[in-house]
């Protein structure tokens, strides 16, 4: 989770990712960020996020995103 928070904070140092649960709904993350995130997560955790998981629900909070990463790691 620490590593993910670092990735997110590098993108948006002004956002508190521990509390914000509406990163997509509030238009904090945009398509640039999503692409960067997917690449950075791939580098950091060695997981490829499949296209069908790239949906708003999985990106609305750091917690949801971390849940997705854990799920994908378990499937391996």
């Amino acid at each position, binding site marked *: 989770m620490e590593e993910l928070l670092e990735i997110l904070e*590098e*993108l*948006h*140092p*002004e956002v508190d990712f521990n509390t914000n649960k509406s990163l*997509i709904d509030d*238009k904090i*993350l*945009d*398509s*640039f960020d*999503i*692409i*960067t995130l*997917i690449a950075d997560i791939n580098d950091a955790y060695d997981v*490829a*996020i*499949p*296209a*069908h998981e*790239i*949906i*708003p629900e999985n*990106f609305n909070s750091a917690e949801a995103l971390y849940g997705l990463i854990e799920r994908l790691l378990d499937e391996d």
Partner: protein
Amino acid sequence: MKRQNNILEYLDNIANVYPDKIAYANESIELSFKTVYDNARAIGSFLHEKGRYKEPVVVFMKKHPNTIVTFLGVVYGGCYYVPIDVEMPRHRIELIFQNLKPGAVICDDTTLDLINTFDYQGDVYAYDEMVKETVNQAALDNIRSKAIDTDPIYVVFTSGSTGRPKGVVACHRSVIDYIETLSDVLEISEDTVFGNQTPLYVDACLKEIFPTLKFGAKTYIIPKELFMFPIKLIEFLNKYKINTVCWVVPALTLISGLGALKDNVPEYLHTIAFGSEVFPIKQFNIWRKTLPEARFINLYGPTEATGMSCYYVVDREFDLDEAIPIGRPFNNTEILLLNDQDKPAEPGDQGEICIRGTSLTLGYYNDFERTNEAFVQNPLNPYYPELIYRTGDIGKLNDRGELIFVSRKDYQIKHMGHRIELGEIEMVMNQMEGIQSVCCIFDNDKKKIILYYVGDVSKIEVVNYCKNKLPRYMVPHLVEKIDTMPLTSNGKINRLALKEMYANR
């Protein structure tokens, strides 16, 4: 055959042929050609009533079918439209207002309050009020009878190296020239269903707006949010049976690069035009494998030569280290490749891509100095006045005689489909309180903008400032504070040293 002199003739004609067919739509509203015609003429009549004529009218509305109607309405009124958008940072809008000094701004309900927060003293008109105006046929006829095809129809603003955006002014004649030849290349017909991706405040959206009117085709405006979620985007394309897209390359690689084409196919798509950046062959091959029957067309051109100037219809396989050509100029356009001595480059040699033809726009609004730098006398013709536009792009011909884009001449970069001068970012950031010096570099492999700064401010403050002052696509991906700025022997910032620093970090 009667010669067309006015862009509105497309709409006058099609509103009679297909009055009830849908012209422009999004997921919640559909406008028929008759509605577009009626509302645009009401807006033209409203502007006439207010005494607006032959002047810039700013259109400050969200991305919506009504915005396109407003563009057309401004032209019916004998004025020219200047699109701006809430996505633009305040600072940029203020610079545009300073350059333009507009007397009228048209707003929708999302911008009516916002416009009051700007230092703008002119009139503000609400779209909803304008479309209620009774059409004044006599006035519109009179405006039309006095119009000529070199009258401007829009001013769109592009990035400028000094930080001041440049307003490119285009007239009926160059837009008609573009639409006619583009439509042939893309094989547009009444069955075409466009899915619009590009913002309405750039000239890229001409590709959908006007062929739709010429043929009675249909354009769906795709919600911007979908360009984050590739499968939802494909679902949208399929739901509305979209068969033709003219997108920037990153929008296409978003879908292929994230693996969305593995299990999902845009099943109606048969024409894919792309531009703004080089299409990585690996991604391109995924698309071509998914849609083997589709036509793929590479487009290239600067805003200053009205939309696009060159095209290449993909007709062969490419190796991973090859670039897809930008091909050949559109009909009625010539490309000159000029070397350092302003002589034609030898076959196979590199030269600056220069454009000759009707497609040249009129120049930059209220800026003769920068117009004269870029729109210059054709150096190959010393006998009579003839302008060419110097793109600042370097190109060459390959063995097949196809034009290849090589690179930019200066520090201008292409990123996420936008043209960016790194100097513009630096200019804005140098204005920040506490900043001593900044320099931007571009990581071409990872497509990231990196900002280095020296100053007594924190990284968070710098990032926040960037976000307030710069358009989203210009905000650096990485901000790094350094103690001193490396300089070259003649005192300029040493970009190479910064690039090394970045590579070794």
